């Protein structure tokens, strides 16, 4: 009986610790990082103009091997921070396709002329329709699309050398065909 009573009196304390533990574990969570609904799904179909040239780009025409799909815009300050990293990755042989999101064509070209162009092709999504189909809610966002045109990863925010090394690179490499032959090192 006394043992039972002690237990009952300890209950509020235990509940407090449980709640404190729960809240503490959630402290590091970033509420802005939403799970992507598109993981494992195919890249949505689109038919959009290229930033350079007259051709119409489609999901099929940009596919081939795995690539990074980088959502960027000239109005996005973080994209400027991220840009040198993308240039470095392109130099290493990483395939990056740009999605110029809700932007002005002329400004976008001037931006790439000034900062360098890491993109294999740049898809112009002036209306934001492809962005909406992808579930983009801000720029920059970077998707890893595998050789079957399936979205395998979504990175929200700036790509840095650190998160490339730790997270994106392994996923990108395993998304490629002939991983052993064409692995991107470092």
């Amino acid at each position: 009986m006394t043992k039972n009573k002690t237990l009952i009196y300890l209950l509020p304390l235990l509940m407090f610790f449980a709640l404190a533990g729960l809240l503490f574990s959630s402290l590091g969570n970033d509420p802005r990082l939403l799970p992507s609904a598109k993981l494992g799904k195919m890249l949505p179909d689109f038919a959009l103009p290229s930033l350079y040239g007259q051709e119409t780009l489609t999901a099929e025409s940009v596919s081939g091997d795995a690539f990074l799909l980088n959502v960027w815009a000239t109005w996005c300050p973080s994209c400027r921070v991220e840009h040198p990293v993308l240039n470095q990755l392109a130099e290493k042989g990483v395939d990056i396709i740009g999605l110029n999101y809700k932007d002005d064509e002329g400004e976008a070209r001037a931006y790439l002329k000034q900062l360098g162009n890491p993109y294999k092709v740049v898809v112009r999504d002036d209306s934001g329709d492809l962005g909406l189909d992808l579930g983009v809610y801000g720029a920059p966002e970077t998707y890893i699309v595998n050789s079957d045109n399936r979205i395998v990863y979504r990175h929200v925010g700036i790509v840095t050398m650190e998160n490339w090394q730790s997270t994106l690179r392994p996923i990108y490499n395993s998304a490629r065909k002939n991983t052993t032959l064409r692995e991107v090192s470092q």
Partner: protein
Amino acid sequence: MNSVRACLFLVISIIAFNTLASIEIYEFESDEDERRYQSLITELRCPKCQNQNLSGSNAEIAKDLKKRVYKLISQGKSDTEIVDYLVERYGDFVTYRPPVKPSTWLLWFGPFILFSFVGIFLLWRTRRVNKEASNKPDVDREKLQQILSSYPGETKRTDDK
């Protein structure tokens, strides 16, 4: 004085212009469609500004989503189709009514579980208290009177109290 007035006029017209600019105007085929649009944009959540619904938000993405909702309504899509369409792209996050599935069970049933725990606890406690009340020690009144009468002084003292 005139320049102050001109200034004020300018400021007010700028404010007025801004308010106008933030309202999207859509033409609906029927009042029913408009009502559906209004209820959908209050029920859908803006992915960027997380504590607002689409109707309360002026973020670019919210505008795009409202435009898409309008388009889907004009295409004759049903409410569930439209919500599914957005959930397919933005996840359960976009709706303020999360679907019932294993990862949301705690959210849906948690309060009821907690409530029944409290209920069970209260029931258990009242039953115990009742039991204690009925477990009053049996007092043999006659014997008590006998004992008390054999100590006249004691009886008096108790009466004084």
